[in-house]
């Protein structure tokens, strides 16, 4: 019997696509459109709208706190891309080695934090970092490393690092699994022939494995970048942007402006600003990474 793919008529096409488009529009497209709309107004909720043109955008460009929060976000993002994708890649490569016992168990355990809610992760790490009864300082003390004890979340100089460790811990498993999948698709024969040619394990990783999974790696960096640039939950729970403003990210700042100060229209402007920044950064990274082709 011959199966023919029927070309769907317009009506069917519409019916099939409608639910998806509808939901997507409702939760993504329209909020963005509304935000753009409100960003041109002075609005604190309710019915009174007061058109002020690009006033909010001019304000944003002169807002030192917004730039500070951008700087903080950039630091956290840099740490996280290196920590999540970089270390995730290293773990994935090690897990492909034959000398690793119980690779399945390692994979499961490292992946586990991914399924925890970010809020819970934030709470867990607040307890780990607690100055008085926290696991970390307790461990350092019992190891005789008392001088390493820090106010992990109170010291403005290290708070971004402390938060990043918690976020990296949570998501490293995700990138490990993505990259492991790509590594397992490399034909065994390629690896074997490189071994015969005398390539060391390190050379294998750098010269063969990474180039061969480069497209996947690129995707992983993109996901990580976009995810970390809009980081919110962990920081909200762990420090609330503090101490002072030392761990305030763009989204946390936007939240404070919108909901603590009820400046909803300026908050909308900031969200548009954040979207533009994320677009520019991910776009630029894509350009840079895409320029170098290994395949």
């Amino acid at each position, binding site marked *: 019997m011959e199966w023919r793919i029927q070309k769907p008529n*317009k009506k069917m096409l*519409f019916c099939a*696509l*409608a639910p998806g*488009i*509808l939901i997507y*529009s*409702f939760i993504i497209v*329209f909020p963005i459109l509304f935000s753009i709309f409100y960003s041109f107004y002075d609005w*604190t*909720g*309710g*019915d*009174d709208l007061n058109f002020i043109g690009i006033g909010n955008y001019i304000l944003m460009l002169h807002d030192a706190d917004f730039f500070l929060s951008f700087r903080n976000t950039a630091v956290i993002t840099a740490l996280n891309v290196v920590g999540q994708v970089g270390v995730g890649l290293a773990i994935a490569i090690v897990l492909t080695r034959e000398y690793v016992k119980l690779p399945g168990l390692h994979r499961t355990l490292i992946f586990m934090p991914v399924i925890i809610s970010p809020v819970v992760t934030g709470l867990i790490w*607040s307890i780990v*970092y*607690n*100055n*008085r009864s926290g696991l970390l300082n307790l461990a350092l003390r019992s190891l005789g490393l008392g001088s390493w004890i820090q*106010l992990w*979340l*109170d010291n*403005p100089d290290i708070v971004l690092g402390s938060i990043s460790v918690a976020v990296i811990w949570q998501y490293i498993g995700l990138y490990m699994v993505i990259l492991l999948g790509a590594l397992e698709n490399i034909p065994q024969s390629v690896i074997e022939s490189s071994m015969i040619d005398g390539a060391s394990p390190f050379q294998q990783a750098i010269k063969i494995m990474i180039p061969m999974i480069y497209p996947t790696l690129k995707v992983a960096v993109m996901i990580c970048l976009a995810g970390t640039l809009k980081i919110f939950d962990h920081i909200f729970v762990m*420090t*609330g*942007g*503090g*101490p*002072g*403003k*030392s761990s305030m990210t763009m989204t946390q700042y936007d939240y*404070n402006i919108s*909901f*603590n*100060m*009820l*400046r*909803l229209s300026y908050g909308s402007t900031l969200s548009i600003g954040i979207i533009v920044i994320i677009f520019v950064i991910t776009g630029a990274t894509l350009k840079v990474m895409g320029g170098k082709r290994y395949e």
Partner: protein
Amino acid sequence: MKRFLSLGKAAVAMTLALGFCAVPAFSQGTGKTITMIHYNAPPEATSDANSQAFYAVLEKYRKAHPDVTIKDEFITHDNYELKLKNMVASNSLPDVYFSKPDLFPVLREKGLIAPISAYLNADKAYAASFKEGAFNDFNQAGVVWGVPFQLQSNHVVFYNKDLLKKAGYSEFPKTMEDFVEMCKKIKATGVTPIAMGNKGKWLAPSIILNTMVYRYTDGAWFDSLYNKKGAKFTDDAFVSAARLMKTLVDLGAFNPDMNSLSNDQQRDVYYSGTAAMFIEGSWAVAQVIANAPADVKAATGLAVLPPVKGKEKFANIVAGGAGWAVCMNGKIPEARKKMVLDFVKGVFGQEYADISASKGGQPAIKPKIDASKLDPIQAAYSQLPLIFAPIIDVQCPAKIVDVYYNDLQDLLIGKLSPEDYAKHVEAVNN
């Protein structure tokens, strides 16, 4: 492309239709149903006097009025303001809600708050049952906009007499200079002078800094500032208060992890005997009575920050007052107004005051209870010769409060000088 566009148009239409049909989950009640939001944690979860009184009276009210359905929603105190502001923005306020006066101007402008002056004038007995000055915070444009349920000091120093003795002090210092000196001596004994939990960012400014300001000036300064009659945050009084805070920070008077502990946790530090003092509002009286270990409780004394030399006339002024008001939605139709008002008066009335006072609270209505049955700590509180002045962050608009809170944390971690702090707050005030 054309097809895509028409598809898009259809999606827009359907989404808009969906959006406008959406009904808020919790909003104004109808008929014999009264809706309310509040931050009173369930009685099994807290020893807070207001919560204890609220649930006890609410239960009685429900039994006495079987025909009225009361839907109340509890939101934790730290999240309450956010939820309230969201409800304001989305036009879904319930019939009855708590609000601080800083939000009144917005609520008034949107017609979401009902004036209650007329009702108070009509029921003289109810109005007279309140303590003097209970309505002061809620008076705007010559009209009262809310019913107070508490009248409390935003500042009480709880100190451990035993730990003070160890540092060589048999009584609480009489001057600020001596207080600072005492902090140094307590620190030298290996104990944290003042336990502070400023994670929520409000404690240091609202509980400590406000009253420090009133060591250099009085409530008239704030009135002048609030009504834009000359006073500024960059005035000497405010800068001196910020400097005093900085002095305490620099000498290590507070625990180094002050910005990652909550106000509940600061009490735990005090209870553990590793801190000689903690400073909190008078609501902590009930908490200490209920939760402090017996030895710490027995050693606990109450005071307020002592006066600065040469400024003795400002002694005993503390930031304090009613703080939160019980407000009624301005959009309640005439037909339901009396029922809702009766509910507010029924719940936040004499009985509420009596229960709250018996649990260590400071109700807005004069309680009718036997003073000799009070806990010693409650009795010590009632003997403090307090003079209330406006709570700066309760009165000022949200945009000032945000800087007042956040930038003080910068001062606490040494990133901002007292002078710059004052400048930053004044910048948003202008």
